Structure formats: C-alpha cells, structure tokens
C-alpha cells in the first residue's frame, strides 16, 4: 500500500538504520511505524541483545532443516517427534504447516506421528499436489506399518480439497484415512454459530 520505503529521506536517516527499518518492514504484520520503533529499540539496546538476535536469525537459516521423515522443521534429523520411541508409529496426522503441529501438540490429543505438507492445494494460485510434500507421504505409507492417516488440514476450501485429493491417493495403499470432525467451537453460543458449522455439527453429532 505504501510505495515508499518508510525510512524517509536518505539524508534524514543513516544508511544502516534505514536498511534495518526496510528489512523489518518486509516482515509480515510489521508496518512502517513498527519497523522504525523496532530499529530504534535495537539502536539503544545493549550490543549483546542485538548480537543474540542476529545470531538467532543466522542459526535459523543455517541449522534448521526439514525432517526427512515427517518434513517438519528441525535441527536434528529425524526430528524429536519422529525419533521418540514412546509415540505411536501406526498413526500419521497430516497437517498443512509446522505451526499446526504446535497446536495439535498443545491439545495433547494425538500420540502418533505427523506429516507436514507445507501448504494446501490452491488451484487458482497455481499450487497443485506436486508442489506439496505428498510424494514423501506416499513413500512413508508404502514402507508399511501405518494403520491410520488423519487428515488434519484446515477446514476451509483448500484444506478440504487437499484432504480429498491426498485421501484418494492413500486409500489404495491400505491405510484407513480419516478427517478431523467439524463442529461447534468450545465455549461458544449456539445462536451465533454460522449455518454451515451448525449443519456440520448436526451431521456429526454423537451419543451423549
């Protein structure tokens, strides 16, 4: 929206300061004002703080790789979850993004392994199944030992399309493919629920 870099005139800001403001501005959710505030905060902060931030960013790019099993971001390969002997290896939960694993782990409801697709099928954006980590998932199932694949992609159009497409690909490989249920969020009022969610909640109702 803002065409000009937020640094202002070149003469008003020293080039290193302007460069950092611009770098922050490129991050998601950071506007021109926030970029300036972050930069001036670092300018006044102790050098150790700035160094540790720089170090963390460098390490992020140098040390982080994708787990060769589940494709999650990790420092060690295979990742902590894939190498944990306590986890159930016969169940794989398929998610769109690494952050989804964090959410599912917080819930404590899944004791099996994961698989990160790194996106969802989005035909209009030109993202097809071949752009996702689908072949790696198929290879995992071919190795055997997997009884159930839980499709935990987002409950929106792209997530549904991905779940359907990948599900169809996996069914012939012998595993049971399931999908997360859709329904009412915990703590909400029925009166404010949207029609679609309510219809799905009725459809997937359970014995009390």
């Amino acid at each position, binding site marked *: *929206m803002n065409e000009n870099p937020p640094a202002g005139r070149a003469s008003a800001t020293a080039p290193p300061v302007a460069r950092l403001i611009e770098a922050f501005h490129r991050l*998601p*959710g950071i506007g021109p004002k926030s970029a300036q505030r972050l930069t001036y905060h670092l300018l006044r902060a102790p050098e150790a703080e700035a160094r540790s931030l720089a170090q963390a960013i460098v390490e992020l790019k140098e040390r982080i790789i994708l787990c060769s099993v589940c494709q999650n971001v990790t420092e060690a390969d295979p990742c902590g979850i894939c190498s944990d002997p306590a986890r159930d290896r016969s169940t794989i939960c398929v998610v769109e993004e690494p952050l989804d694993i964090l959410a599912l782990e917080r819930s404590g409801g899944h004791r099996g392994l994961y698989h990160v697709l790194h996106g969802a*099928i989005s*035909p*209009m*954006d*030109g993202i*097809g*199944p071949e752009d996702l980590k689908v072949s790696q998932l198929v290879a995992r199932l071919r190795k055997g030992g997997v009884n159930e694949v839980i499709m935990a992609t987002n409950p*929106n*159009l792209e997530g*549904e*399309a991905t779940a*359907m*497409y990948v599900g*169809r*690909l996996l069914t*012939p490989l012998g595993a049971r493919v399931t999908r997360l249920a859709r329904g009412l*969020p915990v703590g*909400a009022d029925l009166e*404010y*629920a*949207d*029609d*679609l*969610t309510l219809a799905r909640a009725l459809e997937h109702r359970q014995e009390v």
Partner: protein
Amino acid sequence: MPQPLRVYKTPAIVLRQRKLGDADKIVTLYTANLGKLDAVAKGVRRVTSRLAGPVEPLSHGSFLLAHGRNLDIITQAQSIEAFQPLREDLSRLSRALYAAELVDRFTEERAENFALYRLLLDTLRRLAQRDDLDLVLRYFEMALLGQLGYRPELRQCVVCTTALEATANSWAPSAGGVVCPRCRPGETALRSLSVNALKVLRLLQGDSYADIGRLRVDPDLANEIERHLRDAIHYALERDVRSAAFVDAVRRQVRRAAARAEPGPSPS
C-alpha cells in the same frame, strides 16, 4: 457535505480469498450489481468467526459492506447457497474453481455485469447438481466468451466470410473463429476441427442449457472441444488459466481409480 451511504448490501459469489495479516483475509466478491470487488473479512481465520463460512470461495451469499479507507470491509454475511455438493466431490470442486478463476481473470474491478453474475451462479448450481460436468463447463466457457465480446465465429470463415461447409475446417483461436479449407494456406496457429466438433460448438452458442443437457458427446469429441475452447480462452486472456491443471489432475486421479476398480483386459 452530502456523503454516500456508509454501508451497502449486495448479493455476491465469492471468487477467491487471500490471507491478510494475522487473522484477516481479502475476499474477492463477484456482486450482482457492482461487478467484481475486493473486500476485507476481519478475523475469519479464527475458529470462532461467524464470517468464515459465508466468505469461503464458491459461496453465494448476502453481504453487508462498509466503505473502508482502502478496501471495503465485510461487516455481515449470510450464506444463501453454500453449494455443499461442490465441496464434497473433487470433480465438481475443481471445475467450479476453474469457472470462478475465469470470471476473476476476465473481469475488471467494479464493472457491473449482471448477466455474468447469473451465468456463474447458474453454472455453480449445475456443477453442484448435474453429472455432465464437462458439458456444463464448455457451455460456461462459450457463454463467457460471448458475454465479454470474444464470441467465436462459427457460421462463416473468418478470412473469406463464406459460409462454412460440413467438411474438415480449421479452428483459429487467434482469429476468433473457424477458417475454411480454401483459406487454410497462409494462416498460422490453426488446429484441425472435426465436423462434429463444429456442430457441438454451434450448439454451445445456443441460448439455453436445456438443449445442450440432452447432448451425448463421446470422450474423444469432448477432448477436442475442451482443447479448442481452452485455446480460445488462452488467446483472449493472453495467459493460462491456473486451475485447469487441477481439473486435469483430478480427472487423471478419477481415471486411475476407475481402472483399479475394474481391472479389465484393456489398460489403455
């Protein structure tokens, strides 16, 4: 100072959405009386959002919008038709997304076109209900080309303007129609056009889908017609339609599944 109304209400079909910030999305609507417009749907990535369902792509709903500084903001939305069958079947879904992408790519913002809105709505309904999905899509493509001023010339040769005969003519997507055998030398980018394909293409230019719905087209002919119309769209848009790849991918998946279900003697 007289000010325009702060909010306005319109029925619309959601063409697509893209993420904005943490929890918001920019939603592209095709409205009944304002044409295509982008609007912000706030907080729709949160689980508790009431707006999230009605702003899903391919939903038909009634929208209340407020004028925003940059983009307008969707303040309320109610679903009229969610087209549930489209969302539960990849063959239907992939084609519906293709139709929505075509409308998105062929239109400018805030250029009113009620006929196009009707056409998209009817097409989504047909894709949700009928089984002749490819024919529905071909009719949509032909009608879309017609409404936007790219109606292919199927009665006379685009070079010499003599009436076309029931013989092997050529499809000339770059010239917007058909070239007769006499004019073929000297023309470029031609595709051979069978007599039957020409007949079906003419039928597709008809006014109502009711006549076409009864048509039975064999797979080879269907392929030929699909290719010709995709070529015509490619020339009109000057770019490829991205969702077409997904339509093809789903079709291949359906064929593979059918082949597995019937391990017949001919695997071709």
